[in-house]
């Protein structure tokens, strides 16, 4: 029914071709359409005339299978975290996470809430954080350009990190998702 294999360790690729690939990856970031939090409201102006993220090749894709980037637009409730893990693992490599808002960094104003996790980094490998509550569209674009730069430099390796340290992430995830019913390996 589901996948039952551990993910393979991705190899390290270098060379000219990989640089070209990275250029292409950086200039064609497809974002999973999943507004996980309140930051999603600022993603909509991002697509319209003033900010127009399509200029950078950033587009929204409705399904995770076809996307490259997952935007965590703010705090994550535990109920959402489960879905986000599922969505993230269904994105194909290489994949990146941009986390918006202070609340993803250390809990922000919800640091003492029983239902929102504080440090997203423990559960998913974040490539770029964007500060603010909520971040302005300009800030989000800035985050994207940072991500693009990281991809071009070959430093956006969160997905590799996730695969290498899957046990660590799983342990953390299972700690807070009490009714864990996701498959352990899930691509």
């Amino acid at each position: 029914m589901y996948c039952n294999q551990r993910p393979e360790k991705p190899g390290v690729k270098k060379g000219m071709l990989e640089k070209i690939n990275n250029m292409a990856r950086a200039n064609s970031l497809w974002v999973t359409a999943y507004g996980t939090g309140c930051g999603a409201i600022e993603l909509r102006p991002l697509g319209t005339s003033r900010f127009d993220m399509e200029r950078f090749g950033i587009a929204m894709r409705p399904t995770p299978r076809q996307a490259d980037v997952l935007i965590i637009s703010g705090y994550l409730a535990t109920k959402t975290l489960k879905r986000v893990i599922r969505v993230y693992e269904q994105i194909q490599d290489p994949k990146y996470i941009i986390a918006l808002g202070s609340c993803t960094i250390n809990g922000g104003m919800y640091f003492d809430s029983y239902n929102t996790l504080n440090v997203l980094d423990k559960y998913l490998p974040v490539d770029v954080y964007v500060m603010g509550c909520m971040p302005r569209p300009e800030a989000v674009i800035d985050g994207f350009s940072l991500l693009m730069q990281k991809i071009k430099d070959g430093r956006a390796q969160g997905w590799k990190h996730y695969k290498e340290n899957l046990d660590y992430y799983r342990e953390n995830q299972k700690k807070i998702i009490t009714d864990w019913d996701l498959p352990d390996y899930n691509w």
Partner: protein
Amino acid sequence: MVKALAIFLPLLGAFINAWLPGKSPKASRVVSYLMLTAGLIAVIMLSIQLGAWNLRDLSDSVILSTGVGSPPLSINLEITAGGTLAAIVMYAATIFSLHRFALTTPKSQPLILALLTASLGLLFATDIFNSFVFLEIGSIVTIGLTAACKCGSRWEAAIKAALVSGLVTILYLLAVAVLYRSTGMLTLAALGNVSGASAVIVAILLLTVIVTEIKAFPLTGWGLDFYQGTSSIVAGLYSATWSLAVLLWAAKVLPLLPIGNPIIYAWIGAAGLVFSQLAGLRASSSGRIMGYSTSAYASLLLVAAGTTTGAFYTQTVIVLMIFSSIAKFSLFMLGNPEKKDQWSGFGTLLFLVPILLLAGIPPLPIFWAKFAFLAHLASGFPVIFYAVLAGLLLEAVYLFRFWSARSEKTGEKSAKRPSAVAAVLLMLLASVWITRMSWGALDFSGSIIESAGLRNIFHGLFAIGTLLCLPGVFNRIGREKSYWFWLLISGAALTILPAAGNGLTFYLLWEISAFAAVIGVSKGTAASKGTFWYAVFASLSGYLLLGGILLSKGSFAMAGVPAVLITIAALVKMGQFGTHLWNVRTYPAAPGTLPAFLSGTSSKAAVLLLVAVAVNSSSASLPWGRVIAWIGALTALGGAILAALAPDYKKMLAHASVSQLGYILMGLGLASILGWTAAIYHTIHHLIFKMALFLGAAGVLYRTGTTEFNNLGGLVKKMPWTFAFTLISVISFASIPPLAGFGSKWLLYNGLIEQGWLPVLIVGMFASVVAFLYSFRLLHGVFLGQLSPKNAHAKEAPLPLLIPQALLAMAIMVLGFKPTILLNFLVPVLEKIGLSGLAPVIQGDMVLTTMGTWNAWMVGLMVMGLFGFAFVFYWISGHKPKYVGQLDIGFAGEMPPSADEVHYSNNFFRPYQRALSFLPKIHAQKIFSGVNKTFNMLGDGVRALFTGDGRTYLAHSLIFLLLLFVFLNGGM
């Protein structure tokens, strides 16, 4: 001495028995058996002596005089050759039923023997007063037997019988008085001597008596109630002895009646046949159905008396009456349906043979009589012919309904009864014997299709189609035991079919094939409904075909009405334009590989029939070709839409089959070379892919036990080869190049445009696009999507099913890539037939028409090349995707609940359905139920005559008498 013994041994037995009873039942039984066996031997000897077994000449007779003086004081019997045959039946029936009486009503043995004596007496009586005596004995014994049996409404039945016999007595005695007064003689021959007013009176009175006694239509009521009221054993014995005797006596008397023009019998009979069979449609209890059937045969007797004379009359009547009696006897013996006892497959079959016999299905004996008789009618009495045809069809309908209702209760224990088994065996033997007699000459010398090429194509198709279905019969489930035998018979008959040299041969093979298949279908689990529909529509097409053949005197060179009838017969067989109902019900019900045979192979018999009609006509075309093409086009469209909405794999294939046959009709309707090329090409193509699909369906059914789309899905993981072959077939019938299906469409469209039939073309093209809907539905519903956990155990279909599919898939490839192999053979053949239009030009691999080009080989190379290139590119580009489970889908971030729930299957094309909703919902189903309702209403109307009240029946008789009087008097 032998003669007398033959008649009076039973009487002696009766007396002994009457004297013995109570003291030693065993002794009485021994006596009875002794007497009866001796009598039987005597009768057989007599029959051999008279040469009755020859059947062609039944005129011999011996006179047996008893006592002194002349009748009526003595009993003078004329033992005719035919009569001896009937006497054998009577003896045999009595012997067979004796032990059952011994079990139920031991004291009735004298009555039984008396009944036999009365029957024999009546059968051979030459004197009108002697006849009266036997009639009276028979009536009284009947009443006694009825009253002695242990069934609920026996008294009613007995009293009704008594009332009627009272009336009959009065009328009969009146007639005797008048006759005697007029001629001074009481022999039957004297009837010819009366003249004037007394002749009329005698005729009217006796006719009323006869019609009442034989239970022909207007005076059927009491007989129905009698059959319904009494126990099955009494009814069985009654129909095999007394009823048979009365019928044959009537047959003897009727020609002698002093009526100006005997055609009046035929009119009474024909009208009675239609009306009583209409009423029969409403009958539900077995007794009543037998009653109606008796009425049908009585009516046939009247028709025969009115239209035929001499030896032919005798033969017809003897065969019809004797075998119908045997059939009824065995049906009654096989049990009373109300008892709801369980039946095995063998029991069902046992039950089917008498039904087939009654319905007049070849090669059973009644068919021969009916065939000759109908041929005679067709040559001289067209209106009566149509009426009789319609009546017989109606009879077949209710008989088959009776059987299907009966076989629904099949299951555990067999209710085999030795007597019934014997009767059935006897019938089968008799049929072999009578077939040998060759009433109509079977002819294989020159085929109805002169062109050897065409003939060979059809021979090959039928043979291959049958052969490919055979391996799969080894994989069957449960009750579907011996359908392979019937498949083989049906296929064999089909294979010979193109060689048939005349109409009769064709019809015979056609019906054998159809009804062997009916029996095969009945082997399926829960197949009763499907079998019923198939049997009814097979009868319909059979009777239409018969009508056409008879009207054109057995030859296929025909035009006008016979051609139309035969065309309709073919359309019914193909399930076109509303008659698809039987396909849709039969194919899902049929067991194992039988649907593949039915849809792929058997339906091609209709194509052959149409081809035969067309090639034998003067212009090498079908009557009303344009109408036929339209029927084909509309059926193609309607069938495709219905297929898209079907919820069941086999049902969908059935609709699809009907739809695809529509294309063949479009081609045949064209009557141009291109059209025919397309039609024959598509015939072959349809055989190939439809067999492959149905064999695939058989595999799926075998492995999963279901064909409902809701319960299937995802089987590609389990049955990859079946899927691959199905996919090839689907791509082909969706007419996607480079597989074979495109060729037929291309040729057809070219043909249609050549003739300028653009509207037909548009409908056809639309239908071919709608075919995508169901082609995908089929693949998805069964093979794609989520695999239900229930089917997780399923394996690949067994090899006997797979190998034929593989061969067929290969054939599709070959036909698709190199259609010129076929076209090079086909086009010259068709050019010779004399069709209009230009033939396609074949240059190497290129096929050219005046407007279009098609190079299947290049297209095939291109597609395969590109596909192969893409394939290789996939491999060498180092793309190694990871296989994930079926539930690992992007499910909006949630977890899919279960494969069953996620699989999308029910109401697959609901938006399409909704878009269609502006159309009035004309379902063929509704039309047919409308027809059914109308017939039921008519039937009810007729049925209302038979109130079940004895007085009404008396009134009927009197009214009949009055009407006869008015009518005959006016006539004179």
